[in-house]
């Protein structure tokens, strides 16, 4: 789960990572009040989880009340690369002397946290990596030992940052590591890490990705919301306990098991179709879960045909078939379905479907055949 900047900064404050003083605001009035409380000049920042906010006009300096009001009005509701801005962060403006880059990531390949520091900050890290790969210093940290002072010193000296800020930057890296581990984050990124005119070291931005599997032990993080990224279908799916990702096509898809569903999307695309969603009904899906899944898939108005691709292992095809029959009783179904059932109790499943004689439901024998047929029907 990706956190918004202001949410990340709440976690930073909790772990004593220095940040400029700031306030969250959801309305123009709140933004103006926050600005007056903080004292001008302030920066008004769009809260959306996407790079390039500044270039898109989502970050503005306000010198007085009138400008704060103007900018807040302009930015709220703005569309930044497909995301609508619902929230602002109002922050004391900082005088910029140097811009560095710092990050701690969970390196999947090495299976260790990796700390990174660069004296070139303020631009996209992929851009730094491409243009000045030598300017990024990387260091793995042993997860059983943790981040020691020497890690911080090494990173700071090897990155070639200004001598007078080596100690505070190294200290900040240690705290960012603490955020990574104690908040169960997969990524903690500060870009830019700022040295101010008075040589203070602060995190001007905060990009944190937390591990969804660890939310049970972080009540505060679990309660964070991101209204600009919330999608009606995805919210509904979440309530029903289904793994659903909305895509932009028109072929609704349900399968069991993440790998098989991904493969089903690919096969539909190969057949010339465009998947409308990823939906994993999970292992051992019961009939009720299937009813919920049909409801979620059809709540997307773009869907013009639906493919069920089931390979029964723990999931029993007869349960899936029963679920589909009850879904047709409970949900107003107006689009054609193609159903492919293979594996545990597949014959029984097909018999149930044949007996129910559901309108608009076709049974396909193979995964490829099913994909080709549903693409035909979706138009």
């Amino acid at each position, binding site marked *: 789960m990706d956190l918004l900047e202001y949410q990340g900064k709440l976690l930073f404050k909790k772990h004593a990572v220095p940040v400029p003083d700031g306030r969250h605001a959801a309305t123009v009035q709140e933004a103006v009040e926050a600005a007056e409380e903080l004292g001008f000049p302030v920066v008004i920042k769009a809260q959306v989880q996407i790079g390039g906010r500044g270039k898109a006009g989502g970050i503005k300096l306000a010198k007085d009340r009138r400008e704060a009001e103007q900018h807040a009005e302009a930015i709220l509701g703005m569309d930044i690369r497909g995301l609508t801005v619902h929230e602002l962060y109002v922050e004391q403006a900082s005088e910029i002397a140097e811009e560095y880059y710092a990050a701690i990531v969970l390196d999947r390949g090495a299976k260790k946290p990796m700390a990174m520091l660069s004296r070139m900050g303020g631009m996209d890290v992929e851009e730094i990596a491409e243009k000045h790969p030598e300017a990024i210093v990387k260091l793995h940290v042993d997860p059983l030992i943790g981040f020691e002072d020497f890690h911080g010193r090494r990173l700071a000296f090897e990155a070639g940052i200004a001598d007078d800020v080596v100690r505070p930057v190294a200290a900040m890296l240690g705290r960012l590591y603490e955020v990574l581990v104690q908040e169960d984050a997969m990524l903690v990124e500060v870009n830019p890490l700022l040295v101010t005119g008075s040589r203070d070291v602060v995190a001007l931005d905060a990009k944190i990705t937390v*591990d969804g599997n660890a939310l049970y032990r972080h009540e505060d993080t679990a309660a964070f919301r991101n209204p600009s990224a919330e999608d009606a279908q995805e919210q509904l799916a979440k309530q029903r306990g289904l793994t659903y990702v909305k895509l932009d096509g028109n072929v609704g898809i349900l399968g069991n098991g*993440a790998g098989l569903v*991904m*493969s089903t999307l690919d096969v539909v695309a190969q057949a010339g179709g465009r998947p409308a969603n990823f939906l994993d009904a999970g292992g051992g899906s019961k009939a009720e879960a299937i009813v919920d899944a049909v409801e979620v898939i059809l709540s997307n108005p773009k869907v013009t045909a639906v493919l069920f691709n089931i*390979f029964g292992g723990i999931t029993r095809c007869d349960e899936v078939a029963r679920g589909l029959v009850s879904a047709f009783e409970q949900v107003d179904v107006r689009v054609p379905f193609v159903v492919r059932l293979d594996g545990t109790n597949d014959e029984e499943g097909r018999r149930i479907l044949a007996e129910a004689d559901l309108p608009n439901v076709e049974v396909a024998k193979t995964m490829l055949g099913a994909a080709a047929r549903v693409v035909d029907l979706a138009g």
Partner: protein
Amino acid sequence: MSILVGKETRVVVSGLTGREGSFHGLNNRRYGTAVVGGVTPGKAGQDVEGIPVFNTVHAAVEETGANTSMIFVPPRFAADAILEAADAGVKLVVCITEGIPAHDMLRVYTHLRRTDRTRLVGPNCPGVLSPSKANVGIIPAHFFSAGNVGLVSRSGTLTYQIGNELVQRGFGNSTIVGIGGDPVVGSSFIDVLALFEEDEQTELVVMCGEIGGDEEERTAEYIAGHLSKPVVGYIAGFTAPRGKTMGHAGAIVSGSSGTAQAKAEALEAKGVRVGRNPTEVAEVAAEVLGEKV
């Protein structure tokens, strides 16, 4: 032979008295696997259809001589259960549990590698099946028969799909290994391929990857340098959008890294043939094995 599990396997199940643990533990026993004990703290002395339950893995190992642990406990207790099994001297831990925090797994992984006594398969995996010998996990064994194709995969149902396509072409499996869909898993493709390379029964390996991380890319390098047996690849997730987790915690394209395209290209660059869909994977495997005969 076969790899990881076989006739010598003796399984202790952590979480045997739970719904999933008892269902699959008994299922594995029915298949002929020696499921010799279970562990549920506080329930020592009970049994699950004749399988004795112990308070600790140590007690279970001492009493039953278990050499393999299968873990079904909920995610918040799973890292502890893996470490307990390793501490009790079990050689192989198969962790089925899905949803273990990644930082827990970092600690577990680092400890297991450092002590180097216990191999972990999973978590978030369907387990390991050596057809007609032993089944440790949730793979529906009745689809598969013994044969010469090794199968290693990050996904469960996709493995069944590909395995079934192979069965329809008359091929069986030496061992099927689900390594799991989490970002941090105990055994990598490389670990499992190294075992298949040494296994006499295995003549070809099908590896089934998916988006996220760079393991498939590193595996491609490994195959070029170390494998004499043919490998057929498959990658799921060509249509996955960036930044979205596709069901498995580890299945995510971050920025420009972890794409299916990059993985397929890395494998092909090292001479591994990659099927575009499960059916084609089986066709390619059949073709390669056919040529061998």
